[in-house]
């Protein structure tokens, strides 16, 4: 086979079963591609030895006809997932050489089903960021480039965040798929920025156990992959009840792949008027209209809906997420694991350790969270934000009760930008990236970003579909319909290969 890294995950799976390709060849091709792509900085830690050893076991199983669902498929794992015996950093200095003695439930589920790990993928520090520029291990570079004068501009484009290593590695064909996490848009925004598919499932669909916590009532695991089908295959293995996470839901996991190609005839798609923000770029507005037209052509019924509290979602998020982060990140105290800086007494040891270990964005969010939870402010900020969260959820409940099956919106307010272009003077400018995605986390709903075309300057654009709780199947069916209708996009030639 010419270059197995060009296969999708499902094509690779089928080629392995048809014996047209060995797991050894597939793993070796990805290991080689990763070695040549250091300029993209996708990986914090590479584990070629694990992928190659797993491939041997997979080839033996394939030969015996005992293939598991993901047998022999090499994946990347976001470095927020604890991996047994492999350093886990959350892209922060404060975790130092932390090497878990256990495996996160979701990455363990993928290994159980026969997948292998090529390495740990870079991210924004503690998943706090929208451009992967806050990583202590340096920014990730997108394989995409802006068009300029018939060629390409060499400005380095961000892959989105926080799952920027996941999105860039999948887009650049360094792995067949990757795990990611989403607290306010961290799966869907990087997927949209890189022309990949990312799904944040319903809160509770995947276990959070063993994933470094950011904001526990919002965090959810999900895959980034190159096709809707590949995302469906991965999510089926990742999802499921886990007694170790009391918020994970004890409900059967459907075979999501069956939803690919299912008819969307007669499905009711809500188009929320409040998402048509003042100053929405005409390019994004046109993309959205195009998405409506594609679904209509596929037989869906389009209805305008109202989600009146949409505009409050992002400010409320920037109270709730930092508040929960300040509590979760209290564990980084220099005592049990990670970095320790000396101090004259224990308080100074904590303060020095946390000042040295946390980057600027993490410090900002911990401080905001600490402030909004502090005595005298808790009701005014945190409780109020949680009430607004009830209103946001109620908006969706009303729309679904009126018969809407899914909601269609843009995934991001703009295409990807170049490094250093946003958030330098004002952190809020970067936060606005999540304006279309954050409502979904606030309401605990599933949301998928699917590629829909290219911007005028040649960068990918994505659409988002939001579903009813635990109805990921409808999202996969609708996303597959958009994928089938959307123009096929082409990455620039592999300029990053060294």
């Amino acid at each position, binding site marked *: 086979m010419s270059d197995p890294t060009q296969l999708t995950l499902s094509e690779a799976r089928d080629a392995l079963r048809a014996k047209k390709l060995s797991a050894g060849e597939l793993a070796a091709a990805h290991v080689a591609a990763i070695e040549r792509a250091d300029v993209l900085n996708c990986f914090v830690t590479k584990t070629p030895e694990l992928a190659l050893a797993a491939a041997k076991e997979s080839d033996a199983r394939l030969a015996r006809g005992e293939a598991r669902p993901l047998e022999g498929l090499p994946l990347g794992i976001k470095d927020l997932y604890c991996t047994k015996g492999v350093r886990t950093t959350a892209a922060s200095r404060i975790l*130092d050489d932390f*090497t878990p*003695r*256990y495996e996160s439930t979701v990455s363990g589920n993928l290994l159980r089903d026969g997948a292998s790990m090529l390495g740990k993928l870079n991210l924004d520090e503690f998943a706090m960021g929208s451009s992967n520029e806050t990583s202590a291990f340096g920014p990730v570079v997108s394989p995409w480039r802006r068009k300029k004068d018939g060629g390409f501009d060499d400005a380095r484009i961000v892959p989105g965040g926080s799952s920027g290593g996941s999105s860039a590695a999948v887009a650049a064909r360094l792995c067949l798929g990757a795990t990611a996490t989403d607290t306010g848009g961290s799966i869907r925004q990087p997927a949209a920025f890189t022309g990949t598919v990312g799904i944040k499932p*319903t*809160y509770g669909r995947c276990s959070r156990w063993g994933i470094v916590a950011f904001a526990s*009532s919002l965090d959810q695991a999900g895959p980034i992959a190159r096709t809707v089908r590949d995302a469906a295959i991965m999510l089926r293995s990742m999802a499921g009840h886990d007694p170790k996470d*009391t*918020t994970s*839901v004890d409900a059967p996991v459907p075979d999501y792949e069956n939803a690919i190609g299912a008819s969307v005839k007669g499905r009711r798609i809500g188009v929320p008027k409040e998402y048509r923000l003042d100053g929405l770029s005409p390019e994004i507005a046109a993309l959205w209209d195009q998405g409506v037209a594609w679904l209509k052509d596929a037989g869906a019924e389009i209805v305008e809906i109202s989600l009146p*509290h949409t505009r*409050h979602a992002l*400010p*409320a998020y*920037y*109270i709730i997420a930092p508040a929960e982060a300040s509590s979760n990140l*209290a564990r980084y*105290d*220099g*005592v*049990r*694991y*990670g970095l*320790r800086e000396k101090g*004259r*007494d*224990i308080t*100074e*040891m*904590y*303060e*020095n350790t*946390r*000042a040295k270990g946390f980057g600027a964005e993490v*410090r*900002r969010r*911990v*401080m*905001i969270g*600490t*402030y909004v939870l*502090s005595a005298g402010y808790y009701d005014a*900020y945190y*409780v*109020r*934000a*949680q*009430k*607004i*969260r*009830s*209103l946001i*959820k109620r908006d969706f409940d009303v729309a679904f009760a009126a018969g809407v099956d899914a909601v269609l919106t843009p995934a991001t307010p703009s295409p990807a930008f170049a490094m250093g272009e946003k958030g330098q003077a*004002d*952190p*809020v400018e970067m*936060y606005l990236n999540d304006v279309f995605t954050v409502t979904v986390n606030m*309401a*605990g709903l599933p949301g998928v970003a699917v590629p829909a075309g290219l911007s005028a300057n040649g960068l990918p654009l994505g659409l988002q579909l939001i579903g009813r*709780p635990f109805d990921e199947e409808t999202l996969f069916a609708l996303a597959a319909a958009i994928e089938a209708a959307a123009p096929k996009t082409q990455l620039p030639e592999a300029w990053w290969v060294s």
Partner: protein
Amino acid sequence: MSVDSALVHRIAHLSRIKVEEAEVARLGQELSAILAFVEELNAVDVSGVEPLTSVLPMKMKQRFDVVDDGGKAEDVLANAPEREDQYFVVPKVVE
């Protein structure tokens, strides 16, 4: 809401994060910008609205009250920056 230098110091101490004097003015501006961004929430009518505590109606699962894990001192201590036998070591906290 403007965050002055005294408040920056207070929040930093509550957060157990040391701040350098040179960072205080910039941090004050950044925190003020974030608080200004969330200020619009004060205009929302939330009377009679319950704060959301769980995104989905679900009953917390219970398990039998038995020991089902443990005895892993070596695993727990494996990543400690400083340890002695089966203890974490911290600076002296009692005089």
